[in-house]
């Protein structure tokens, strides 16, 4: 029994310690002032590999989720004679919740794990150490551009996801199931508030973007530089990142929409 308590304490301390290390890591990567011209090019390159490369999965997922929302929503609402509310339902669900959250989960799986693996591999092949030996800080050159790329990409991807999802809902509701297009859009516009819903959704996705990118980069940087270590690190990125997103989503939703 005592042993269990001791282990619990040891685990908690270890977690706290790595949280502290992760915070220092982030601080050093970001507060380090970058050289503007060179780092802009690096940022562009990272925006491509982090943002643009995630577009296909976001577009396809957004479309399908919008289609399914339209179908399921219609099936439920038609029982109450409220099919015209489909636009409202699809739009609010996407903009407030599914857009930021599902995008963040997909991002953690696709871009996050790619980042972790890339940095872990750089660590394992001593590229980070040799960069340090040449006198260039790898936190500034490798980590910082990737962080900003994630920070910028996530909200954009979430917005795109929501937009495509709404279009998907429209395709099902209006084009297939025959809801009158005018009431679909009018009801939606009346119930979706830009500042309360869309902007809050964007705020959520910014928070998720910071969290997932931070976790992905730290796991790669901190991993044991063997192939097994990299595999553990990528798994951790996806798992911790996803759990963090879901947990933060609850807190943010309670604050934004629950009136706390």
């Amino acid at each position, binding site marked *: 029994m005592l042993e269990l308590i001791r282990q619990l304490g040891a685990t908690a301390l270890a977690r706290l310690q790595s949280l502290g290390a992760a915070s220092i890591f982030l601080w050093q990567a970001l507060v380090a002032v970058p050289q503007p011209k060179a780092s802009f090019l690096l940022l562009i390159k990272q925006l491509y590999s982090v943002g643009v490369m995630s577009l296909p999965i976001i577009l396809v997922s957004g479309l399908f989720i919008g289609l399914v929302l339209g179908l399921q929503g219609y099936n439920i609402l038609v029982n109450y004679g409220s099919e015209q509310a489909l636009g409202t339902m699809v739009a609010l669900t996407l903009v407030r919740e599914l857009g930021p959250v599902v995008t963040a989960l997909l991002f953690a799986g696709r871009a996050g794990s790619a980042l972790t693996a890339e940095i872990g591999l750089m660590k394992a092949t001593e590229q980070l150490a040799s960069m340090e030996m040449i006198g260039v800080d790898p936190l500034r050159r490798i980590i910082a551009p990737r962080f900003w790329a994630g920070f910028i990409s996530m909200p954009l991807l979430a917005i795109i996801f929501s937009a495509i999802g709404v279009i998907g809902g429209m395709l099902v509701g209006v084009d297939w199931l025959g809801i009158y297009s005018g009431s679909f859009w009018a009801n939606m516009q009346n119930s979706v508030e*830009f500042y309360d819903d869309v902007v809050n959704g964007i705020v959520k996705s910014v928070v998720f973007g910071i969290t997932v990118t931070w976790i992905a980069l730290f796991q790669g940087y901190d991993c044991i530089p063997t192939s097994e270590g990299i595999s553990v690190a990528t798994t951790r990125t996806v798992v911790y990142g996803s759990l963090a997103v879901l947990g933060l989503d609850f807190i943010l939703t309670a604050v934004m929409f629950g009136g706390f």
Partner: protein
Amino acid sequence: MRTRSLELAVGGFLIIGIAALFFLAIKVSGLSSELSQPSYKVYVHFQNIGGLTVRSKVTMSGVTIGRVADIELDKKRLNAKVTLEIYNDVNEISTDAVASILTAGLLGEKYIGIVPGADDIFIKNGDEIEQTQSALVLEDLIGKFLFNKATEDKSSNSNAAATPAPAANSQDDF
């Protein structure tokens, strides 16, 4: 060379993102029509606002003429004080108009409907609409119905033709 196509792709990504944002702003949330209308303030007092919320519609004959800007408790008169923002081009609402809280559909949201009166004097910025009708509260309706039913049963032997239908519109007098 390769950088060129890279920058193109990233630029495209940003453009798609911003376009999606505009789509969400205008098509999905109807932002532009909300922002552009200048309006004036009118105050209304209700006994019970039901589920009315800030940003609910204000309509006349079904046409949106404004929004609910603020809802607060009037501590002196102990009822709800609702601030309406009515578009400037709707400036011929007479002072004896009636403002009621209505429901859109069966389970729909609450909104305010204004029925114009006959007066020559029109409401200006800061004025108050005197005549109001509160929201229908389901429990009150059921209570009235049961009460009337009970009354009807009591006087059933005297052949009283009871009108069980409760008065659905309770005029509020202040």
